[in-house]
């Protein structure tokens, strides 16, 4: 870890997200209470006025994401937070944000689903929803913290990525991270994320992209740009183009590829003991901590186990995982769902090694020994 000056605070993951957002320059939050995300709203309600920012409890989650997008074009860095049921309600808004390229941050403190499900228990069942929940073709970025420190770090990063890629960025936290109190190091002198103002030209075109598919900064309302923002497919000027197939195809492709084409730049993983590993545990979010614990135990027992924690889950780090799959005979994927992300791993590993799903439902976190048991079982089955 870099040597930076920092303050230490003991706080919940939910609070860490709020502090990171404020440090990143977020000055607008709109939300609606829901377990286990409510502390985010509560801390925002307390903190925003202290930094002359805006906290709004809206009438529902739909209004929350719409107000957030409005504030984003209004000139503020903005975010919203919820959990499963509320995130489902926000889906139409997510698609709108994606197509108008609004830089917003959406926090999903995941709980057990489906529906009202298990309101007070953790889950990782919403990872595909983050990518596919709204209708139409679009892409988002999603980051998954496994500790309060990561909740802080990744939240700060989420705002930076949202601005750079002009895209909604999800933080997929969960009830465990949200409600655990831990030490968080807050670097002193952290600068707010920059919002680049585009050059104000004659005939400014708000949707004219560079060769990398990215827009040049973010114009705010009432700064002279006179822009039209429209959820219908539009041309570079922002005018409706639903009757122009090529323009529509171009825009749809661009908002997808501006993310997928940058997958390699967006990779954020943490690997431990992978160099010589025969067995790899690939995980994300909360289970990655008992996974590391189990791997350390396995090493003590002489098993060459290794560990990969994926922090940027969307776009999926295809290439890195494919590379890491070359050596081990088995990859174990523990997740707090019925076994979803394991399919992505399977897809990119493409038969190069065995991929084993270790799902856990019911609202409990894997224990280190559960993961260790699987490592031991697999190392016995296949030893080379």
């Amino acid at each position, binding site marked *: 870890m870099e040597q930076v000056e920092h303050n230490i605070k003991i706080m919940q993951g939910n609070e860490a997200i709020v502090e990171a957002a404020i440090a990143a320059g977020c*000055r*607008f939050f*709109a939300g609606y209470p829901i377990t286990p995300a409510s502390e985010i709203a509560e801390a925002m309600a307390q903190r925003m*006025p*202290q*930094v*002359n*920012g*805006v906290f*709004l409890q*809206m*009438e*529902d989650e*739909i*209004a*929350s994401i*719409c*107000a*957030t*997008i*409005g*504030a*984003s*074009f*209004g*000139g*503020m860095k*903005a975010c919203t937070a919820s959990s499963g049921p509320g995130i489902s309600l926000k889906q*139409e*808004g997510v698609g*709108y944000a994606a197509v108008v390229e609004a830089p917003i941050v959406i926090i999903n403190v995941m709980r057990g689903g489906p529906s009202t499900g298990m309101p007070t228990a953790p889950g990782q069942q919403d990872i595909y929803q983050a990518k596919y929940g709204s209708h139409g073709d679009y892409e988002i970025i999603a980051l998954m913290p496994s500790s309060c420190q990561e909740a802080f770090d990744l939240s700060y990063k989420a705002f930076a990525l949202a601005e750079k890629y002009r895209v909604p960025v999800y933080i997929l936290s969960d009830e465990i991270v949200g409600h655990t109190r831990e030490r968080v190091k807050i670097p002193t002198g952290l600068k707010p994320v920059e919002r680049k103002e585009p050059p104000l030209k004659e005939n400014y075109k708000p949707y004219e992209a560079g060769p990398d598919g990215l827009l040049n900064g973010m114009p705010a*309302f*009432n700064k*002279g*740009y*006179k*822009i*039209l*923002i*429209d*959820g*219908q497919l539009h041309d570079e*000027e922002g*005018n*409706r183009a639903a009757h122009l197939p090529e323009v529509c195809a171009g825009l749809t492709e661009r908002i997808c590829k501006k993310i997928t084409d940058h997958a390699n730049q967006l990779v954020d993983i943490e690997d431990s003991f992978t160099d010589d590993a025969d067995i790899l545990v690939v995980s994300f979010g909360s289970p990655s901590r008992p996974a590391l614990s189990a791997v350390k135990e396995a090493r003590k027992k002489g098993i060459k186990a290794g560990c990969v924690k994926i922090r940027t889950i969307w776009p999926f780090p295809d290439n890195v995982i494919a590379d890491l799959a070359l050596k081990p005979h088995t990859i174990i994927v523990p997740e707090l769902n019925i076994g979803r992300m394991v399919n992505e791993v399977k897809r990119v590993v493409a038969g190069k090694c065995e991929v084993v799903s270790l799902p856990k439902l019911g609202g409990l976190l894997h224990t280190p020994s559960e993961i260790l048991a699987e490592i031991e079982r697999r190392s016995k089955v296949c030893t080379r």
Partner: protein
Amino acid sequence: MHPLGEKYIRKGTLPYLWCPGCGNGIVLHATLSALDELNIMDRIALVGGIGCSGWIPTYINADTMHVLHGRTIPFATGLKMSDRDRKVVVFSGDGDCLGIGGNHFIHGARRNIDITVVMIHNQIYGMTGGQVAPTTPYNGKTKTSPYGNNEPPFDACELARVAGASFVARWTTAHPRQLSKTIQEAISHEGFSFIEVLTQCPTQAGRVLYGTANAAKLLDMLKESTISITAAKNKSAEELQGKLLVGKLYHDECKPEFTSCYYRRNNAISSL
């Protein structure tokens, strides 16, 4: 084109996609005059819903969001709160505002947030082809009430007032001058202002509900079915029978406005 059009209409969006004789153009014109008179094109944000009427602001060369069906007021709330000096005007169809968007409507009114909502009331879902709206008259036959509408319509102005709006007015497209003046007044008012505009939709409401696509005939009907509150004062109950009041129906200049209260409190807190 009219000079206001030359001055303020966004290049490259014409012609208006509205049907011949549609009232939305009249509302657009009235809005342009109001904005011109107020000279606030640089600090106005316009928000349009989804529906024929939601297109009104998209033709105006100002900072404009064309949003999701029913969600104008939440978007407008984000725009207003992110810059307290900005004025925000919403254009929303009767379906957009009172159908899918009804909850945001009453909550915006309750907050008394400084947003002007111009609701275009054409008694129908126009853009989708003539389905029943929460404003369709009882027993009215539409594409989705082919045997007659079973549901009584809302009185949007009453709803706005009871929910908390501090400025409530109603006009029709047969009153373009008054409408423009009222839009101006509503924008100047600090608080949630609501203007209901009854308007002719020859293609859908006209054909489906009234059996005529004649815009002039429909506009005449609108005119005849209304009476201004000033004129109504001297009329007997009998004479007022079946007439809808138009004019400024309610105005409370003293009700605290949400944004300014919010920031005033913020200043007290953040300067601690």
